[in-house]
């Protein structure tokens, strides 16, 4: 009976299928210069086994969101569940079920590489001998075996990241959180880390990753939420986002002086099929279109007829970057 009712309770929890769920999650920091709304009502629903990305520029509220999901930041509004457990109601139970790779290097600098894994395993209840075995297993898997006796301070940036990820996995967490895992790494190291994360995902590990690198989200994530100024602007698969926002190709032409009214009309592109939006702003014209052929040339030519010289021009193929541009009207600031 006890077992059955325990089962019932588990399934009775809000959306037991979801690895991560938030409802109108908010965080407002009180500072001497007034309130700062870091997160303004975020709704997420990440099923088990998904590789989910929170994408946004620095200061968008990604780290605050991950902080609330990992119990280190107290929400000021809304609710959140991780592995079916309320993050505010039972933070200890949440901490048992999550692995966290923080943005900073939070390795224990007083310990060796192996000891970092051993003690973390023991914090999570393994006996000393078991913890030693677990550490060896992880050191081998993460290619750190020859560094096991090195102090954590002596690791390179890439090795430290690998150790941080290994350490987050000692207790087989239900959900792995990674906050900007590849920030500041060289391209080769980044690609190596991506490979590790892909393997973890293939094994069914639920992963939530924050990143401000578009290509990282595109390369890894099943689904992405684009966030800025503490709000989710759009969420879905990368393909869905590209489709739904309608911004297929973005063409930007910047002239040497202010653009006169009606330039786009003179260029003959206003009525064209496939064009969803034309923006004129100061010295630049930006066209969002599904049929980009010839548009750039027309804009340059039309400008030349008016004596406007082109300073620079860009044609961006559909990508998360164009999605962001469409959603916010701003260049993506990394």
């Amino acid at each position, binding site marked *: 009976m006890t077992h059955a009712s325990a089962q019932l309770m588990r399934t009775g929890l809000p959306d037991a299928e979801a690895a991560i769920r938030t409802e109108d999650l908010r965080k407002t920091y009180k500072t001497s210069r007034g309130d700062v709304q870091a997160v303004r009502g975020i709704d997420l629903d990440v099923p088990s086994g998904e590789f989910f990305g929170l994408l946004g520029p620095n200061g968008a509220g990604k780290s605050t969101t991950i902080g609330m999901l990992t119990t*280190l930041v107290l929400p000021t509004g809304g609710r959140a569940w991780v592995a079916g457990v309320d993050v505010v109601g039972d933070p200890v139970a949440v901490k048992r079920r999550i692995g966290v790779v923080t943005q900073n290097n939070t390795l224990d600098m007083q310990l060796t590489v192996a000891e970092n894994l051993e003690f973390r395993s023991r914090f999570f209840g393994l006996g000393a001998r078991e913890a030693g075995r677990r550490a060896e297993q992880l050191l081998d*898997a993460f290619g750190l075996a020859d560094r096991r006796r090195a102090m954590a301070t002596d690791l390179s940036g890439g090795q430290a990241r690998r150790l941080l990820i290994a350490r987050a996995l000692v207790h087989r967490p239900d959900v792995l959180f990674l906050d900007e895992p590849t920030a500041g790494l060289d391209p080769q190291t980044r690609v190596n880390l991506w490979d590790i994360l892909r393997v973890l995902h293939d094994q069914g590990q639920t992963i939530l990753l924050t990143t401000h690198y578009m290509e990282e989200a595109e390369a890894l994530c099943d689904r992405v939420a684009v966030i800025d100024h503490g709000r989710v602007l759009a969420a879905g698969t990368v393909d869905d986002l590209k489709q739904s926002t309608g911004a297929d190709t973005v063409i930007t032409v910047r002239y040497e002086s202010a653009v006169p009214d009606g330039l786009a009309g003179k260029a003959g592109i206003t009525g064209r099929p496939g064009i969803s939006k034309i923006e004129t702003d100061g010295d630049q014209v930006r066209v969002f279109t599904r049929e980009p052929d010839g548009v750039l040339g027309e804009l340059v030519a039309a400008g030349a007829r008016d004596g406007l010289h082109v300073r620079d021009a860009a044609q961006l193929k559909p990508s998360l970057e164009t999605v962001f541009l469409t959603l916010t009207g701003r260049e993506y600031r990394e």
Partner: protein
Amino acid sequence: MATSTNLEAPPAGAAEAGGAGVAALITEAPVPHPTLARTFAAMMAREFRVLRRNAVATFTRAVMQPLLFVFVFAYVFPKIGGGFMLGGAAGGAARAGAAASGVNFATILVPGLMASMLLMQGIMAVTFPLVMEFSWQRTIEDRALAPVPIRVLAVQKISAGAVQSFIGALIVFPIVLLVHASGQAPSVHVTNWALFALILVAASMLTAALGLLLGTIMDPRKMQMLFAVILLPATMLGCVYYPWSALHSIRWLQILVLVNPMVYMSEGLRAVLTPELGHMPLWAVLLVLIGGSVVFGYLGARTFRNRVLN
């Protein structure tokens, strides 16, 4: 035949070796069952590992101050004679009081230096690492993610600091007993070991709790203030170099120093080590040491939690 089958096996496994290794550790790892006691014990084990690794540095830190103090006060000064002005100034009223009751200065110093060492070690062991953990990389987040409530982490920090503080006081003991000029041996005799242990433990907890509170409220950029504003006045006005009773000739000071927790540590140790010297009533000592540990521990744990969770 068997050989050829092996040779024909696809070499995919080799390329996937790293990946397979990562994969295996997810499916083959034991699922741990942390309990509060296990996690706490593991955190203490971590402290002892670090302590052992830094044993030489920690030991040197614990030995140098008391060694130099007793060398100068219990060896150099008696040798160069009481007429030497500096000696008279440093000894002050204590020497007068001590001489009256037939006690030498080393006897006064034994409990005083132990108390001073308790405070020093308690703060060194808790405050300094804590300030580091909260600044720069915020390495505190590592421990904060362990599966225990944040206040348990605070209690663990106090416990670990108290152990170091306790060890620091024990190291002082042989030094002050052994280093002195001939005929200047301190007269120390512990009559009540249980009370001695109780006072040492309570004093260790109090300094570690103070260390936690200071570590969570100190601005890291103003760490040098710690010496000027806390450590130095606490020690100089903490009845380290003179018994509290000797302050009766400066009544306002005798009352003022009662806000200093150091006074109760010095006097408590005086009560159990050198009872022939006048000391503060034991009930007052125990009340402040135990009550202070609870109050500062509570306040420290609260500010700690506020700093960890934002």
